[in-house]
């Protein structure tokens, strides 16, 4: 594919989301949405993340429905392995009792992992297929068809996850410590004196906000960088084969690790939120 573009065009093409927005003249796509502002939708991110999320819930639900307490089948054993892994991490970190934390951690881990794993699909496959479909079915210029298939390289995805976690941090803080306790935590730490209340408030607010922000940016940064390097490797001709292989093997470690870190930090933040100091 690289021969049809200049290298920078190629990279830019691969890093652009398929965008959809509604304009005065109806639903518009991609370049027509440049001025849409907030009300634009990354349809590729949405579609892939929903498909992968459905893959997760449907396959796990299928196992859960016919889960046997006797000898499990191979897929059930695998699902239970994942479940026990998540459950062990949750119970060793989160000491309160909550019916939400463990399923939340499982959803984050598996969903993020599945979205990350899209990174291992060779970078040209899905954009090329999308381009061919656009060209032949919708009579579009394939250069104007975008397909960014790794949802976690989209800030919207990582921020959506982090936002959910942030809301839960606030919810658990208020639920466990009461509104007064939470306010006290924000204003009377680390310096327990009334004169330091503004300083404390600034410090604690930064701490509080840094958590979801770092969650979202860490995942996004790692995945965006790795995707970018996959794309760069794809531009260098024949040598891309061993390099691509090496980088992909490295990502067999990185992709689950990022999913695990996101899950683990979620548990840690929620357990911090629900514990009194």
């Amino acid at each position: 594919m690289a021969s049809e573009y200049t290298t920078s065009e190629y990279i830019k093409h691969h890093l652009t989301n398929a965008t959809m927005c509604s304009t005065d003249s109806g639903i518009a796509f991609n370049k027509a949405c440049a001025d849409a502002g907030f009300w634009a939708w990354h349809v590729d991110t949405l579609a892939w993340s929903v498909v992968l999320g459905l893959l997760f819930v449907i396959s796990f639900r299928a196992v859960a429905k016919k889960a046997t307490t006797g000898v499990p089948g191979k897929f059930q054993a695998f699902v239970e392995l994942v479940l026990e892994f998540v459950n062990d991490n949750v119970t060793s970190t989160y000491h309160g009792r909550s019916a939400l934390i463990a399923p939340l951690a499982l959803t984050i881990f598996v969903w993020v992992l599945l979205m990350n794993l899209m990174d291992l699909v060779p970078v040209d496959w899905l954009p090329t297929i999308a381009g061919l479909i656009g060209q032949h079915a919708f009579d579009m210029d394939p250069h104007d068809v975008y397909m960014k298939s790794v949802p976690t390289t989209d800030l919207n995805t990582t921020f959506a996850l982090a936002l959910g976690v942030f809301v839960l941090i606030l919810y658990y803080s208020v639920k466990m410590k009461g509104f007064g306790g939470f306010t006290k935590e924000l204003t009377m730490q680390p310096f327990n004196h009334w004169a330091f209340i503004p300083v404390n408030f600034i410090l604690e607010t930064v701490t509080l906000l840094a958590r979801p922000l770092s969650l979202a940016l860490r995942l996004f940064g790692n995945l965006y960088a790795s995707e970018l390097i996959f794309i760069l490797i794809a531009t260098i001709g024949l040598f891309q084969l061993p390099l691509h292989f090496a980088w992909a093997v490295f990502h067999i470690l990185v992709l689950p690790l990022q999913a695990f870190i996101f899950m683990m930090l979620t548990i840690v933040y929620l357990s911090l939120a629900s514990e009194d100091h």
Partner: protein
Amino acid sequence: MNINATLIGQSIAFIVFVWFCKKYVWPPLMGAIEERQKKIADGLAASDRAEKDLELAQQKATEQLKDAKAQAAEIIEQAKKRANQLVDEETQKGHAEREKIIASGYAEIEAERNRAKEDLRKQVAALAVAGAQQILQREIDAQAQNDIVEKLVAEL
């Protein structure tokens, strides 16, 4: 790469997936896992118990075997003793019988001999009387001379 409405879509998707997982995925799977853990724990406990039972049964069997052997040995011992006793008794009885038979034989022989002796004595007396008669050529009053004859017989 900019933040836009996708954030809302992704948040909704996230909430729905977490809700679904919490309601329909986690409880049945965790329930199955815990149930199986309980089953396995029960099974292990049962196998432990069975092992202990087996050990106990083996111990009991060994004990009973030992008892039985001891009893058998005792019975054999008793039987031997009884047999010896019987043999002794019978031998003694035999001896006694023999003695008795021999003694009665002797007595019979003695009586026979005495009778023969008496007969002989009587015959000798009669012979002596007959002899004396012939010597005296006359009839001797057997009655009157009886005391002499008696004396003679006693002297024989």
